[in-house]
């Protein structure tokens, strides 16, 4: 309450209505996009460190010939879990976390459209991660690669629970990814600030939107594939068993139907983050902004026509490989549009070399190199030579580390003020970047030659005298250098959040989009007054109202707001209301009420985990209890009364 009056001020009232309930239960029941987004980001960062540590162990084993740090079984488990963690537990959840936290702020919204579904997505992600990692506790770690090729993963060649952990855990993670995608698409379609027509949506949000649409089309076939494989393993069905009319190739088609778009699902939001950093750091609008958005859409469409280029060595008919080669070449065109647009923006801007900008440059250099080797492996004759060698390992790491990890690390520097209100140290950040950039290239550049010299993937050791010794040692030294860089990055992140860490104002980098108009970290209610967007960079123009309520000409309050804005600014009903706008022009259309605290998403995710655990251990009563719990949680979730 205000000291001078018995009525709470608008801000106090907003804070009360949009705030979390007190205590641990209140913390658990938070569904607000900021709580969920932060949880996604920091949990997936933990998984990044875990996956990175596994990579270091593998490189230690491969540092010298005939090394005995670990046996082949442990090596198999490490490369499987490294790939699985990076693909399913780090990159996609991290990017969804960024989107869930930042996109509502960039769009001028007060929350995600379905907050409880949002919370369920996080709990399902966490449950999937715990489920997968619990395989270490029981000594049944998945060991057949992150792609789980049949028949190696069938009941005959992979007895035990190892692959069941993988199949069930990945299914849960896919469900988490799908619900987050549904949220993000709906958010972008209807939760934009008045005036933010589709031509004014920030590039980062566009990229996340496109990737989310891709998830809706790419993830379900993998769920279908994993369900069929788990049935082969548990019940003895024969979908992938050639002896009974099945076909192992069915798995590869279903997997890569998901797997190749997945590469771009990991790339596009990261490109969006890089674009947000780039525009801020150069202080100018994105060159060819519309072309960049069109390129994002083109990449999304083309990416669904490329999956067979992972299968050239499987005996696919030559005419089919020719078609997929052509499609693989085509995707270089929209990718080049984005890269040239980035370079032109830097060319015409005045670059401020924040650490985040260094990571963007690192992204361009490394990703272009990965793209060029991508064109090489898209050619069938070369692919047949390089298939399953370290050349492919090098290529995919150049694409994914350059295309996803570097923008994410830059994004953590860039968005940390908004996430937590703290700024990471720039000097430490530069050292970490230098170690990461040099370490990465030292680790993976030699692997191209290793592959060409015949070193195959997934081997746990090699004999002396094959000519691989020096390159492997260099690669291991590089990986340790990068490990040091990541350690420094983590220390920097921790130091920033200790009591003496640097605090941030609303817009420490001079960013142009709406997330920088509000406090750092964003308050419970995000914005407290009228937003009216008139350009893609509302904080740089002189006409947009940015919801900051600062009282100045450009970002201030509307002196005579409409009735609905007054209702949103002073929610005396105690309801979490927000404005919904039309899809194309973002004209204010109606107000809706959003739910707040709820534990049902947590119970639903826990029930799902219990059900899958029952399936894992062949204890069908537990599976039924979990299914019953899931149905009961959903029933309670849907029970009337939210409004």
């Amino acid at each position, binding site marked *: 309450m205000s000291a001078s009056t018995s009525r709470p001020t608008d801000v106090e009232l907003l804070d009360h209505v949009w705030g979390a309930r007190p205590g641990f239960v209140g913390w658990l029941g938070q569904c607000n996009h900021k709580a969920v987004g932060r949880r996604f980001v920091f949990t997936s960062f933990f998984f990044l460190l875990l996956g990175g540590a596994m990579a270091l162990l593998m490189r230690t084993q491969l540092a010298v010939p005939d090394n005995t740090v670990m046996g082949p079984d442990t090596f198999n488990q490490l490369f499987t879990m490294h790939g699985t963690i990076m693909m399913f537990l780090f990159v996609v959840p991290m990017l969804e976390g960024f989107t869930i936290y930042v996109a509502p702020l960039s769009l001028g919204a007060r929350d995600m*459209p*379905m907050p409880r*579904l949002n919370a369920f997505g996080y709990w399902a992600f966490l449950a999937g991660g715990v489920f997968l990692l619990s395989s270490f506790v029981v000594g049944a770690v998945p060991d057949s690669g992150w792609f789980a090729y049949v028949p190696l993963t069938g009941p005959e060649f992979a007895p035990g629970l190892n692959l069941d952990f993988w199949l069930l855990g990945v299914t849960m993670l896919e469900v988490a990814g*799908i619900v987050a*995608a*549904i949220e993000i*698409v*709906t958010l972008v*379609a*209807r939760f934009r600030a008045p005036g933010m027509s589709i031509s004014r949506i920030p590039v980062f949000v566009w990229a996340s939107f496109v990737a989310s649409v891709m998830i*809706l*089309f*790419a*993830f*379900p*076939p*993998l*769920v*279908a*594939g994993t369900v*069929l494989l788990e*049935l*082969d393993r548990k*019940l*003895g*069905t*024969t*979908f992938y*068993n*050639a*002896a*009974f*009319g*099945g*076909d192992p*190739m*069915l798995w590869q*088609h*279903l997997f890569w*139907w998901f797997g190749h778009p997945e590469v771009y699902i990991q790339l596009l939001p990261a490109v969006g983050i890089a674009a947000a950093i780039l525009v801020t750091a150069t202080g100018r609008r994105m060159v060819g902004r519309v072309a960049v958005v069109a390129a994002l859409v083109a990449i999304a469409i083309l990416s669904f026509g490329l999956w067979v280029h992972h299968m050239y060595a499987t005996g696919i008919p030559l005419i089919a490989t020719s078609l997929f080669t052509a499609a693989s070449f085509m995707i270089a065109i929209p990718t080049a549009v984005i890269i040239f647009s980035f370079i032109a923006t830097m060319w015409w801007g005045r670059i401020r070399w924040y650490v985040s900008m260094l990571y963007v440059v690192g992204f361009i250099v490394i990703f272009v190199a990965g793209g060029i080797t991508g064109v090489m492996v898209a050619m069938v004759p070369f692919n047949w030579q390089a298939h399953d060698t370290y050349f492919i390992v090098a290529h995919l790491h150049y694409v994914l580390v350059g295309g996803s990890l570097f923008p994410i690390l830059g994004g953590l520097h860039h968005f940390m003020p908004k996430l937590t209100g703290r700024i990471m140290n720039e000097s430490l950040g530069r050292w970490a970047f230098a170690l990461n950039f040099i370490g990465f290239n030292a680790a993976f550049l030699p692997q191209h030659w290793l592959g060409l010299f015949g070193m195959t993937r997934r081997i746990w050791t090699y004999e002396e005298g094959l000519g691989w010794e020096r390159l492997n040692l260099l690669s291991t030294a590089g990986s340790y250098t990068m490990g040091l860089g990541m350690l420094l990055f983590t220390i920097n992140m921790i130091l920033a959040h200790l009591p003496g860490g640097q605090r941030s104002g609303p817009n420490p980098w001079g960013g142009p989009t709406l997330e920088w108009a509000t406090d750092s970290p964003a308050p419970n209610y995000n914005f407290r007054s009228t937003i009216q967007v008139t350009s893609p960079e509302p904080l740089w123009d002189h006409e947009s109202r940015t919801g900051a309520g600062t009282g100045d000409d450009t970002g201030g309050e509307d002196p005579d707001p*409409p009735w*609905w804005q007054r209702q949103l600014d002073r929610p005396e009903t105690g309801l979490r*209301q927000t*404005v*919904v706008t*039309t*899809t194309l022009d973002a004209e*204010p*259309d*109606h*107000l*809706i*009420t959003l739910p707040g605290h709820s534990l049902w998403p947590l119970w639903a995710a826990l029930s799902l985990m219990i059900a899958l655990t029952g399936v894992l251990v062949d204890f069908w009563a537990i599976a039924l209890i979990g299914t019953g719990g899931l149905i009961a949680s*959903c*029933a309670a979730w*849907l*029970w*009337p009364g*939210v*409004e």
Partner: protein
Amino acid sequence: MRADRSRTVIPIRERAHGVAMGGWGLWLTIIVMVMFVAGLSAAPLYLETAQPRAPITGEVSAGWPPPGIALPAMGRAVLAIVLGALGAGLVGGALRAVREGAVRLTGILLLAGVALLAGSVVTIVLDIAAAPFSYDEHAYTSTYWILSSIGAVFLGTAVLMAAAVLVHVLTGVVDAERHLELGNATVYVWTCVALTTVLLIMVHVHPRLVAG
């Protein structure tokens, strides 16, 4: 589906425009379901295409299904689809009734719809149980058991969805103006019936077509 049918919507203009939040969520969920069924349907299509064209030695037999595995009768599958369609029609009828303000009739139609949809689920389960083969004899028999079962699961979720809306009707939160959940449930139930039909066609009609 329309935003102005939602209880939580307060129009800013004369009436709310476009699809409601729940409608967006539903349509996107339908995309996910369709892609899931596409992935499942790829199994019989791909496996049948990959079968040897002529009998060969060893355990693998040509054909889809191979000689010795009799195709199950289609009667119960047709009955299940008819029951499902009738159930979905009754849920749609409930939507029409609520628009006209007949809340009691809405409840009755929904209850009947739930019963018919549940009957459809039971029919599919009986159909699977009566199959003249086990799920582990051949990829076709696996396909038959699993795709039919997943069809039953789809219809089972439709039953739950319609029952949840029935609770809303019985608790009095649905009226002639605000009945978005019933509109969404109608679309969802019809989608489930359609997807189940596709899955049943894949296991009943597709083998007969490729057999000439």
